[in-house]
């Protein structure tokens, strides 16, 4: 991680540096395809587009707000128990998200089942807290959280679009192929996590050949 704590003068919220915090995770520093974090939920909740969108929003809120709060508390947190403190803050937000989903989008929350709860252990959240929020001011941290949530969501939704379209022939439950009078038999492989894993692989391949990113030896 290249982020270092820097002395920041009062700067506008959408300064160039802060904009970079939002856009970087979309491509050059994407949590899933570049840092390869949060794969497990990316495989599990991308069978359909709707749960993928809800999961992304959930994760974005959790990363953003836990980043914000941890960053505000960063100078008071005893370093010996910092992971537990981070975990406690993350858990609170995750449980809040879970409870809200159960109350207002019950069907989606049933589809997401354990995966909302598993945001707690999602490496992206903890990773951003450790790598960024512990060393940066609240507002950049908040933006970093939003950015990483967006980066995660981008991959999730892209994969989900392909999986739902070619796996069950629909998008957001709307039967695309039927509407176009094409007989389409869903590809069973795409409905399975293995199919999702291949999709992520292909995405990483395309992305890296486009932006020339290489793992350092």
């Amino acid at each position: 991680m290249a982020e270092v704590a820097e002395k920041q003068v009062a700067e506008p919220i959408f300064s160039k540096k802060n904009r970079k915090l939002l856009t970087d995770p979309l491509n050059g520093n994407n949590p899933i395809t570049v840092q390869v974090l949060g794969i497990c939920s990316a495989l599990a909740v991308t069978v359909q587009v709707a749960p993928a969108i809800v999961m992304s929003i959930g994760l974005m809120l959790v990363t953003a707000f836990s980043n914000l709060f941890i960053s505000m508390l960063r100078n008071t947190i005893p370093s010996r128990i910092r992971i537990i403190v981070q975990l406690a803050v993350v858990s609170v937000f995750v449980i809040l998200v879970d409870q809200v989903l159960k109350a207002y989008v019950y069907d989606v929350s049933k589809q997401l089942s354990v995966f909302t709860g598993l945001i707690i252990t999602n490496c992206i959240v903890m990773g951003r807290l450790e790598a960024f929020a512990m060393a940066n001011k609240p507002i950049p941290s908040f933006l970093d959280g939003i950015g990483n949530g967006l980066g995660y969501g981008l991959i999730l939704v892209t994969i989900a679009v392909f999986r739902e379209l070619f796996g069950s022939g629909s998008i957001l439950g709307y039967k695309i192929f039927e509407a176009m009078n094409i007989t389409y038999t869903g590809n069973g492989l795409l409905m399975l996590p293995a199919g999702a894993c291949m999709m992520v692989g292909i995405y990483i391949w395309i992305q890296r050949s486009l932006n020339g990113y290489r793992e350092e030896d």
Partner: protein
Amino acid sequence: MSQPNEKPDFRQSNVYIIIYSVVLTVVCGVLLAIAALGLKPAQDANIEMEKKQNILSAAGIKTATREDAAKLYEEKVSAYAVDFTGKKVDKVDVSKLDLAAESKKKPKERILPIYEISNKKGEKAEFFVVPVYGFGLWNDIWGYIALKGDVTTINGVKFDHKGETPGLGARIATDEIQKRYIGKKIFKDSKLTPIFMEKGEQGGGDRSIAVFKDMPDKVDGMSGATITGVGLSNMLDDYLKCYESFFKGKLGNNKVASN
């Protein structure tokens, strides 16, 4: 993360750490308690509506949304409770009954809900839906069994679970498994035959249904989920036996009516 400090940092002392964790815990706990209390009514309403939807769908009445289901339920379903001997139990609010707790009691002490579905409330019952509750491999499983007016033929079932293994035991919640129960019979020559789930699987899908076509008290099993299957069979056995007297009463009535 340790920063260079001239004097020993109070933030690294045990007292500070203990106070910090206590305060953090209390703050987090209070926040969650408020959220849980505030959202409970909306969550309970969802669960209640889902239950109504499940009862209807076991009887083969499909509804698009939970709100539709709740409306239809009001029109078609009359719910009441009976005891082990099949006698009606008064003063029981069926919707408030905690099935998980009831299933822990001895069969003779249980209060048993019945959902009678008719074309319109008060008319002759087309379906009798009874709830079942038991234990799978990891945790509780439950469901609804819808019997046709003859109190013998299963019109449809609906199962759900708390934590069966995804892809194996969790399949009890899928249409594929639930379809296997359609048309099975719980009485043979007025002897109760709770449907038994076999071990092993004969190919899944329509094949599984075809193989067991001539066995009215058996259904095909789930490969890799034998224990969940056994739990399912035990659940039906346990609960249908409780309802035996009630069912037999209805059977008798039907015979008189048909003569």
